[in-house]
């Protein structure tokens, strides 16, 4: 898993490439925790280049979404397609997280 950080105005965009499984999920968890503790933080997680995500990854995303809610931060996922979308659907997560179709839509959605 590679994490690449971009910014667009006051929005932080974290792009994930590769896989989120039990080996890589802890690294993502630490990164999201660090990002979402600041109130008013606006974070977009771009999953366009994500290969797959296992339940260990969903656990990290759930915790991040809860933390965002508690901290008053905004946390939106985008570009959930193909196999990754199938896994979100199987796990019942498509309606649980805020998900935008593209990075541009997500940047608008976090405001």
């Amino acid at each position: 898993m590679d994490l690449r950080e971009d910014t667009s105005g006051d929005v932080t965009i974290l792009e994930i490439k590769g896989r989120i499984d039990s080996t890589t999920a802890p690294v993502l968890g630490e990164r999201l925790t660090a990002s979402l503790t600041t109130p008013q933080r606006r974070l977009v997680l771009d999953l366009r280049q994500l290969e797959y995500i296992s339940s260990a990854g969903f656990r990290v995303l759930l915790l991040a979404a809860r933390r965002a809610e508690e901290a008053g931060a905004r946390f939106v996922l985008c570009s959930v397609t193909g196999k990754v979308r199938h896994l979100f659907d199987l796990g019942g997560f498509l309606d649980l997280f805020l998900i935008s179709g593209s990075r541009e839509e997500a940047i608008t959605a976090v405001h």
Partner: protein
Amino acid sequence: MRTVETTIANRRDDLARVTRIVEDLAGTHHLARDVVADVKVALDEVLTNILAYAYEDDEIHEIRIRLSLDQEVIEVEVEDDGRPFDPTALAPPDLSASLRDRSVGGLGMHFVRNLMSEVTYARP
């Protein structure tokens, strides 16, 4: 039939090696990317469950993983010496809970059951 077999210890650090073995097999036999992803997710779920729940001591245990490829079928066999537990008998998880109440308990086996064509459990 092409068969690849490996043994790992019940340590999280060893799981990445299993992923690499699946990727090597997939590369050699030009397997469909989605199918390979399904196998890697299923293996991550099964092995994570074994690491988390199968052992009552802190000793090193061996887990054997065998991947068999035959025409259109990939068979994955995982064998451990942990306490008996039939994951196929697990109740499906509640997928309707809100963000606050949602847990991922049971989600791993839910993925395995839905991503694989057939899942069986056996004791010697």
